């Protein structure tokens, strides 16, 4: 079944509301007018009753019937029946008086043969228990007709107003929902080619502004990822182009004429170096691709971070000694994580730090245990990284030192990106700060128990 459109749904709801309200008002009005009529009739009949009692009181016989007829003739729509105390019908003012009438005292309404009567029963003599009963009948057919017409009018009003509000409501809903239509128009126009379309948030009604904001933010993230992805593909091609062209040129030049054996050996060695660099690049990219697809699944083994840091510092010790850089570690923490992956992440940070620390400088690993988790900082002294480069550090193929920008250097510029992927796979975050001669890479890992 097709779902109703939002504007149709609103229009129908409007119509239903109007119908209920006007129906209620109509019923109330018709009840009130009916009660008013009853009140008027009661008053009239009470007055007549007094006149009739007086007429019947004055004359006990003789011209009683004539006096009665005279009294009754002043009110054409009034009839009278008198019933004796033993239930016998003594007098009917007109032959059209219905046979069966209610006997109970007071006012009631009776319908007979298309005519409606208001009936009032009262004793003729108030002080005698066996007094004959007077029954006054007032023809109220025209009242009833009026009430009926009014009821028809009410139903008509209910129907028409419901229809009118449905139509008006549909129009109102459609124009009220126009921002939504605009939103869906923008959404349907979004494709890989036009991720830069945005909703005008300022023009949106408050209810939709939040949604428009989220929508724009989503588009922004999508656009950003897409840009990165395109840039990444372009970068891959670019990174591979240099070694490939080296390989092609070198191999072709070597083969153009006969050479001494040593030259061939040299050519193959040179090719081997390019190939190893490319193999490393491909492996690193596969690792990152795996991370992007959420396939990096860290093991959860209990780790003593201080111990891990020490093992890594021992690994890097020869390099640090050669570069006359002091290595140190401070603090303890234990966590659950993947030893091999975390070693790789830290090794990239340490390798990076050592490369940018001048002779005589220092590289420190600081581990701090916190209630919500732990932080591990790798910091190195040195010139530092300029503020505007910091956000780009974790980008793939980004190299801070322009001297190593093009391929064929031993570093492809994927190390920090890999470190970030590993930390994220552990549910953590990594960021970089550079200030006052120190560059810090800060890893925050949540506690998982």
């Amino acid at each position, binding site marked *: 079944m097709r779902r109703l459109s939002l504007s149709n749904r609103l229009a129908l709801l409007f119509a239903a509301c109007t119908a209920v309200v006007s129906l209620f008002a109509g019923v109330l009005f018709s009840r009130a007018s009916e009660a008013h009529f009853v009140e008027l009739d009661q008053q009239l009949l009470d007055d007549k009753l007094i006149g009739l009692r007086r007429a019947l009181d004055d004359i006990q016989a003789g011209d009683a019937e004539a006096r009665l007829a005279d009294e009754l003739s002043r009110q054409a729509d009034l009839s009278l029946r008198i019933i004796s105390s033993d239930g016998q019908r003594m007098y009917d003012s007109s032959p059209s008086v219905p046979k069966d009438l209610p006997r109970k005292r007071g006012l009631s309404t009776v319908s007979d043969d298309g005519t409606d009567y208001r009936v009032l029963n009262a004793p003729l003599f108030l002080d005698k228990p066996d007094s004959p009963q007077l029954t006054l009948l007032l023809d109220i057919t025209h009242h009833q007709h009026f009430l009926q017409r009014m009821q028809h009018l009410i139903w008509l009003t209910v129907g028409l107003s419901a229809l009118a509000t449905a139509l008006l409501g549909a129009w109102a809903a459609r124009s009220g929902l126009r921002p939504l239509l605009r939103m869906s128009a923008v959404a349907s126009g979004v494709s890989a080619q036009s991720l830069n379309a945005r909703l005008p948030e300022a023009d949106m009604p408050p209810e939709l502004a939040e949604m428009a904001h989220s929508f724009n933010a989503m588009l922004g993230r999508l656009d950003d990822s897409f840009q990165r992805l395109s840039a990444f593909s372009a970068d891959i091609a670019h990174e591979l182009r240099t070694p490939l062209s080296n390989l092609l040129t070198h191999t072709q030049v070597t083969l153009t004429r006969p050479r001494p054996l040593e030259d061939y050996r040299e050519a193959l*060695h040179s090719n*081997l*170096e390019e190939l*190893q660099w490319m*193999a*490393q690049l*491909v*492996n*690193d990219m*596969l*690792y990152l691709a*795996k991370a992007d697809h959420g*396939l990096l*699944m860290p093991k959860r083994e209990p780790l003593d971070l201080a111990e891990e840091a020490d*093992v890594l510092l*021992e*690994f*890097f*010790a*020869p*390099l640090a*000694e*050669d570069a006359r850089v002091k290595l140190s570690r401070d603090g303890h923490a234990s966590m659950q994580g993947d030893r*091999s*992956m975390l*070693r*790789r992440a830290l*090794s*990239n940070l340490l*390798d990076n730090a050592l490369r940018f620390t001048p002779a005589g400088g220092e590289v420190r690993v600081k581990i701090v245990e916190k209630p919500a988790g732990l932080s591990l900082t790798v910091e190195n002294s040195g010139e530092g990284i300029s503020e505007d480069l910091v956000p780009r550090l974790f980008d793939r193929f980004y190299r801070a030192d322009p001297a190593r920008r093009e391929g064929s250097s*031993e*570093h*492809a510029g994927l*190390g920090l990106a890999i470190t970030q992927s590993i930390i994220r796979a552990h549910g953590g975050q990594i960021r970089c700060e550079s200030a006052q001669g120190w560059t810090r890479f800060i890893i925050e890992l949540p506690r998982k128990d």
Partner: protein
Amino acid sequence: MKLLIVEDQPKTGQYLRQGLTEAGFNTELVADGTTGQQLALSGDYALLILDVMLPGRDGWQILQAVRGAGLDTPVLFLTARDAVEDRVHGLELGADDYLVKPFAFSELLARVRSLLRRGSATPQETSLQLADLRLDLIRRRVERNGQRIDLTAKEFALLEMLLRRQGEVLPKSLIASQVWDMNFDSDTNVIEVAIRRLRLKIDDDFPNKLIHTVRGMGYVLEERPA
């Protein structure tokens, strides 16, 4: 020592066979899984090198058949798929080692030698020696030409590895893994520096050098004619 290579890509297969044959192994190459499995089940081989994706029967199936027949021939997998499940799958089925393509031939050779050595019980040595270089495993001392040489613990471990596998080209990744327990690809030049420092102590003062660099492949400890 007979090795079986089951690899359907002709170039890869040829180069593997050539490399392993030249390294002194008797090598047989087949390109499809069905023949590969028949040969593997004959039990004539000291080691199986299996590609995962093969026509006929894939590497996993061959491994299952081999283990199912009660053979404990070491199996080394070559895979282009670097998915964690693949590794787990292979190791669960009883594979002994795996290499992810692209890999370096020196790495493969080192792994093959490790696997073949695993089976044979090595006698408990108390010392290792090459030419006039002597390493005392019990007293943890190193001497060359009678001169005592002081090494750090890691330098000692590195030299021990080189001595145990003398004549073999050891790739940097294998050294990092065995000596420092760093089991990941790393483009750091720590190993180069460590070797250079070891050389400084072992080789620099002596005319015949023992540690040699094999360019693009790794390091080897051997006595070479001057």
